[in-house]
């Protein structure tokens, strides 16, 4: 019984020579893992860069829109004051002509 077990163990643990493609397979796996590691570094970096670009672009659009609105408001203020002054001038001219100044 014990002889039988020993012989089975020996047979199971006998040295086996690796196949011919063992080394290339291992090397290919190592290379693939390296490539993956390299790619894994680029993915978050490119995502962060894209996010920064998107935030920057949005901010630029927002700023230019704000500037556009501000310039429009400025133009309206100037136009409103110009019209008001023009009409005050008109009143003044009428008063002046009637009083003979």
């Amino acid at each position, binding site marked *: 019984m014990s002889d039988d077990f020993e012989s089975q163990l020996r047979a199971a643990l006998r040295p086996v020579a690796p196949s011919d493609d063992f080394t290339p397979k291992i090397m290919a796996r190592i290379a693939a893992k390296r490539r993956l590691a390299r790619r894994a570094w680029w993915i978050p970096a490119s995502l962060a860069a894209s996010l920064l670009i998107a935030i920057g672009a949005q901010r630029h659009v927002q700023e230019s829109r704000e500037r556009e609105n*501000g310039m429009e408001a*400025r133009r309206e203020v*100037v136009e*409103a004051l110009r019209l008001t002054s023009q*009409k005050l001038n008109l009143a003044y001219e*009428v*008063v002046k*002509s009637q009083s003979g100044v």
Partner: protein
Amino acid sequence: MRHRYVGIFFALLAPALACAAPNPRLTLPEFSSLAKKATESVTITLDPALLAMAARFLDASNPQDAAARDVIKGLQGIYVRSYTFDEDFAYREADIDLVRNQLSAPGWNRLVETRSRKTHANVDIYIMVDNNQAIGLALIASEPRQFTIVNIIGAIDLDKLHKLEGQFGVPKLDIDLPKAAAPNPPK
């Protein structure tokens, strides 16, 4: 329970106070029929937020901008409607009356009324005063081919309008302002 009564009291008081306070904001009609007939129409609606925004974009180093910035400081609104026509009296007197009627409300004082038989240019300037401070200005100018309404809300300093002379073509008005309308003298 007591807090609830206080709350109800103030809730009832608030609209009453709002009614009592003079309101210098005019309800300007749509004037859509005038806008259709007009060759040029100007509609300016500047609320406090837009005035604040405009002030940020007025260049302090530019004399015209600096003067405008000084004038709009303390203003809460500027509302302008102006229509230019290619024929005489294309608008109806009733259009003007829609606004003029509002100026008979308490608080408004007519500062200037000009009627020119020669040019048919009529200008009415009204001012609303509260606590010796001008809080509103209304200007109605009707000319044969132009009809303009200006409503300015806020602490209007007429002296500053005088100082605009040369900037926007505002003349120095040789008109005595009512004492109430004059800005508070510096202490």
